[in-house]
């Protein structure tokens, strides 16, 4: 209920929430007021029409306490690279013992928000809540009111990071009935280059808990940012996430999102193109089963000329699961020479699975190239026959084609160890034992 969070806020505001720079308490207060005003969304809200949040609203989640997780327990989630620069958060709180903070190029900041709020108010004031405003989803307002920890990644101008940075958000085995509001800020300054992997994983498989995450990304002039988001929460958990990206001129932002956890999981990816000559690539894969509801909302704002956006989201749905895809592409009158392509393809492995897919193109410029396409269907019977005509058993042929369907987007994951892990996850999910 809304009241539960309002009560939690008052006690938080009087306690840990009072720490930090002077502007912060006001920001929190504005955020909670916004949340109190609008409340949780309902199915009457167009943005939430197909994704019922009532189980989240009804749930009584308490703020997550501190917990410990062993290095061994975390190992399976590290793509075989425990040595990568890495920030680990257990139930939303920074765990320095599990984190890896090697020497990085001059000026690079890699740390947690709670510390930065005490020491680096200027950087945070410039970016925090400047990209993901409070006027959006009530969940963002809620996150902003309660934010206390998360990742801070700052890459100074003209700095190239050789290794990817891994942000790991893990739920401890006793995370049931808790809520965490991780808040992340990734700033890649002019001419810099970085690859960031953001993983939401669980050691509380089967438990119901609530993750309400917000990540703000700033990709500066001519910066190159690669962002991989892996969501593998408990299949009984609730996960609401926003990734809000602002891109400056000549910048490149490449996103891949995997959604395979959560009883109800929603991810919004919003990208604003704030100047010309920007390139944005958005790839997504969702794998659902049981009674899962997985919702991906993307929005790309073409406000300036000569920008290129390319989006491919694919879903594989089994059992009675449901997926929602909504892809907004907004092209302002001045955004001439926009080249935007959006594709959403869904593969239904069961006759009870359902997809609500909605491309939403609003184009106000006349000299543009904008296309979209959405498909929902079962496996291609002709392809199935082709494989069988080569002696391949029908069940194997189905798995090969299903895997191939996923591979088309997984292949777009640029980081090889991550791509290999994703391939394995997909294969396991499809029942491959090879």
């Amino acid at each position, binding site marked *: 209920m809304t009241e539960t969070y309002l009560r939690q806020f008052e006690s938080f505001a009087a306690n840990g929430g009072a720490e930090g720079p002077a502007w912060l308490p006001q920001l929190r207060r504005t955020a909670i007021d916004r949340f109190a005003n609008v409340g949780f969304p309902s199915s009457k809200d167009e943005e939430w029409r197909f994704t019922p949040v009532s189980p989240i609203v009804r749930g009584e989640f308490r703020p997550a306490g501190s917990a410990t997780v062993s290095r061994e327990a975390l190992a399976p989630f590290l793509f075989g690279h425990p040595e990568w620069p890495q920030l680990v958060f257990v139930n939303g709180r920074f765990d320095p013992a599990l984190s890896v903070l090697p020497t990085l190029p001059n000026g690079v900041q890699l740390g947690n928000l709670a510390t930065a709020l005490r020491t680096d108010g200027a950087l945070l004031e410039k970016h925090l809540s400047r990209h993901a405003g409070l006027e959006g989803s009530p969940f963002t307002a809620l996150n902003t009111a309660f934010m206390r920890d998360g990742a801070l990644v700052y890459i100074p101008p003209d700095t190239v990071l050789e290794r990817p940075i891994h942000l790991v958000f893990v739920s401890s085995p006793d995370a049931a009935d808790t809520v965490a509001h991780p808040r992340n800020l990734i700033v890649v300054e002019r001419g810099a280059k970085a690859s960031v992997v953001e993983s939401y994983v669980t050691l509380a498989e089967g438990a119901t808990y609530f993750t309400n995450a917000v990540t703000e990304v700033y990709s500066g002039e001519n910066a190159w940012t690669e962002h991989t988001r892996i969501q593998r929460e408990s299949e009984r958990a609730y996960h609401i996430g926003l990734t809000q990206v602002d891109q400056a001129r000549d910048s490149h932002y490449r996103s891949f999102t995997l959604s395979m956890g959560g009883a109800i999981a929603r991810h919004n990816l919003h990208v604003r193109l704030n100047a010309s000559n920007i390139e944005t690539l958005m790839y997504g894969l969702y794998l659902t089963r049981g009674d899962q509801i997985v919702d991906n909302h993307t929005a790309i704002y073409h406000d300036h000329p000569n920008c290129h956006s390319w989006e491919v989201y694919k879903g594989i749905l089994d059992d009675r699961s449901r997926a929602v895809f909504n892809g907004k592409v907004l092209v302002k009158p001045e955004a001439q020479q926009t080249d935007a392509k959006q594709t959403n393809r869904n593969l239904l492995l069961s006759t009870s699975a359902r997809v609500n897919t909605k491309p939403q193109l609003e184009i106000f410029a006349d000299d543009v190239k904008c296309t979209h396409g959405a498909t929902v269907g079962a496996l291609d019977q002709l392809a199935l026959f082709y494989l069988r005509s080569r002696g391949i*058993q029908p069940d194997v042929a189905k798995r090969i084609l299903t895997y*191939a369907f996923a*591979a088309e987007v997984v292949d777009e994951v640029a980081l090889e160890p991550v791509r290999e892990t994703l391939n394995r996850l997909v294969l396991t999910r499809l029942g491959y034992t090879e």
Partner: protein
Amino acid sequence: MLEVKDLHAAAGGTEILKGIALTVNAGEVHAIMGPNGSGKSTLAQVLAGHPAYEVTSGQVFFEGRDLLELEPEERAQAGLFLAFQYPVEIPGVTNAYFLRAAYNALRKGRGLDEVDPMDFLDVLEEKLKVVEWGPEIMSRAVNSGFSGGEKKRNEILQMAVLEPKLAILDETDSGLDIDALRIVAAGVNKLRRPDNATIVVTHYQRLLNYIVPDYVHVLSGGRIVKSGGKELALELEARGYEWVEEAAGVV
């Protein structure tokens, strides 16, 4: 090897094959020719077990087994191969993976051990020569973005790997330029042996300059209306199909 008796088949309730009789022995090459819509490709696909067609009556024996009782994968394991007129694109699956999966499926069906990717590379080395290809084709997705000629070559590569007893080439010549046609035909000829057989389904005589048939059958209106030796193909090329159809009373 293959015996087709009074085969009738329909698609979507419309009868397309209206009583086909055909016998193919080991070592033989049969050409099945005919105008568009005569049922040539339907015959090829029915023999491979395409689910879009329903066999309404008749019998087909392959190596003494009732072919119509077998699933498509069982037909392949029994040694039947269809080179598709329109090979299917499978983005996301490499040629190497696909070929090995098929090769191992056939080995498994014969009670043999599967081969691992490294050993399969050795198998492939010889097979690639059949279609004059280098190993780089193996890392591309199956037929995905292939030119028309590449797709047909890929069918022949699969044939080389799977070593069928009976290969049915469904309009393998359509859409090929002269170089691709030469490579494809040379590939088929290299794979000919006394103990296997080939059925070449084609609209044009051109391919038969390269793959010389022992028998030529003319299909029209779902029936074989004339059979003869390789000279029949030349006659069809010179005179068209009408005279055969008229003589048979089809039109």
